[in-house]
């Protein structure tokens, strides 16, 4: 594993070299907030940021994406038959992604890449992406990544980790994809790996100490799903919820989608759009019956999915990387950390 020293004076030049080989995405300040967007030539990512308002999931999983097209014109060959469309899956790089968001792609991959079915749209976009992480030296007050199996210097899901040392970045190459990225940028100054690892380790310890909030998840696996489902606290948790869906919209690990047809004149497309378990239409049957008809049922579904069904299904940790966005953005202050602790403690 190579460690490279990137002098910030060579940062802009390196990005220019990359521009011909990758579509580059990075955090850019947009009015008040940082958001991930595609960088035009000469545009620099602003790496002086805490985290983006929304997660970068849309770079692999578009909020709205065309799947097929077709003609409804009966005079045309192959009318009414759905056709795959050509899409651009040329290499792209996500520069400055936080380790929590990078970990979320690994987690979401389990849903889109199953033994039985592969989701070609998500997987092709994912495989074309190089994840260039930026270690967090100043986590937010709502971050709880260290209790979700993640952390401010976490490397899983990254091809390359950048550690900001002030005048320079230490770049830790983690995969062949990261190696290609570094080569393409032309950053070549190798650094003493032992000394660099020591610096990273010290910075990591400092950053982890700054994480101020935690959740307990150790008992979730042992709890009964039926008992948790019937727990008395759901009405209270859901009481203030206005079912706005902001939590699922901002969440890097929420993957649910809808499929819809749209027609203009005789040309139609089938597309998929992000959807949310917070909305009643999500589960409404054709008969009018809805198994999750009340707000409480929908709030319960969101937390049970993330903190219990996922844990049971994959026999692993929770479906959450601790980025804290749902906590920061919830208009009525519903806090997943509190709910997680309530569920973890609940003995039935």
């Amino acid at each position: 594993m190579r460690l490279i020293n990137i002098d910030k004076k060579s940062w802009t030049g390196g990005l220019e070299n990359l521009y011909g080989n990758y579509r580059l995405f990075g955090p850019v300040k947009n009015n008040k907030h940082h958001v991930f967007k595609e960088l035009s030539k000469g545009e620099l990512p602003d790496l002086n940021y805490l985290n983006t308002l929304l997660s970068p999931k849309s770079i692999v999983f578009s909020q709205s994406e065309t799947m097929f097209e077709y003609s409804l014109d009966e005079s045309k060959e192959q009318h009414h038959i759905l056709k795959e469309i050509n899409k651009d899956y040329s290499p792209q790089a996500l520069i400055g992604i936080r380790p929590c968001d990078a970990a979320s792609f690994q987690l979401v991959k389990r849903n889109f890449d199953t033994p039985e079915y592969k989701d070609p749209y998500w997987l092709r976009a994912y495989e074309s992406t190089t994840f260039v992480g930026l270690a967090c030296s100043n986590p937010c007050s709502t971050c709880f990544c260290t209790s979700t199996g993640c952390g401010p210097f976490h490397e899983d899901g990254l091809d390359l980790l950048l550690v900001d040392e002030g005048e320079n970045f230490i770049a830790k190459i983690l995969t062949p994809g990261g190696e290609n990225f570094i080569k393409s940028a032309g950053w070549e100054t190798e650094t003493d790996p032992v000394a660099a690892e020591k610096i990273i380790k010290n910075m990591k310890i400092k950053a982890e100490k700054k994480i101020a909030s935690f959740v307990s998840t150790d008992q979730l696996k042992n709890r009964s799903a039926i008992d948790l489902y019937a727990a008395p606290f759901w009405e209270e948790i859901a009481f203030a919820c206005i079912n706005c869906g902001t939590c699922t919209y901002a969440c890097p690990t929420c993957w649910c989608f809808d499929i819809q047809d749209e027609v203009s004149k005789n040309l139609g497309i089938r597309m998929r759009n992000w959807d949310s378990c917070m909305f009643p239409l999500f589960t409404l049957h054709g008969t009018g019956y809805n198994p999750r008809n009340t707000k409480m049922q929908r709030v319960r579904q969101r937390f049970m999915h993330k903190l219990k069904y996922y844990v049971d299904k994959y026999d692993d940790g929770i479906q959450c990387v601790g980025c804290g966005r749902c906590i920061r953005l919830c208009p009525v202050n519903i806090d997943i950390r509190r709910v997680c602790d309530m569920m973890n403690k609940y003995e039935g």
Partner: protein
Amino acid sequence: MQNPYLPYPVCIDEIITETEDKNLKTFKLVFLNPDDEEKFSYMPGQFAELSVAGKGEIPIGIASSPTEKGYLKFTVNKVGLVTTCLHSMKAGDIIGVRGPLGRHLWDTLKGKKIVIIGGGFAFTTLRSSIAYMLDPLNRMNFKDINVIYGARSPGMLLYRDELAEWETRDDINMHITVDSTDDPDWKYNVGFVPTITEQKAPPWDSDTYALICGPPIMIKFTQPVLDKLGYAHDHIIMSLEMRMKCGIGICGRCNIGKKYVCKDGPVFTLAELDNMPKEY
């Protein structure tokens, strides 16, 4: 990479209006590419997404049996956008089929006594199951077959010609019933499905499996009857319905607890359902 969202193109070969309220039609579909029929290898109890270009997709149980070659059949109730459009289509129109989707439990059922309990238009996949078991190459693989099937009135029963044919056979015991009728020539049962089940279903033994499909109200009142008759919950197989989109366990909406009805179902044993939240 194979695209699991891409439907196979099919042509509507025939449309049969099944019921007196004209709300249920059976669509006989023929694959445009013969290779696709090979790939669409299914078993009774599975379903498919029917795709109408410009409208969308709907999950529908497969009513034909894999023993019936050259076509697929789906019986569709007219309910929403896609089904209403389907009901207005004609023979020769092109639609799509995506599947087969969901699991089946026929490995468990081989060599067993089968009790089929169906109500209303949920009889479609049960029809597939009966046609499959009655196929001359399969019948010896099953012991006694009992069928209890009910609808509101005689004119609301599906597949009436077939029901009449099955009535004449000695290798299947039919117990057809209607909620009520003023037809003086009605020669079968009158009564709700749970009542007829109590009267006609064979007592349970470990070789007997019940396959149930019907409206929630029928299931709710049939379950205590089966308990009374001693049916073990892991010998009661039910098929569930949910709003679905992808049909392959990815889009996230049809879960009950950690199970997706589309991929981990739609058939579940009652023993499995006993361990899942009652959110259906």
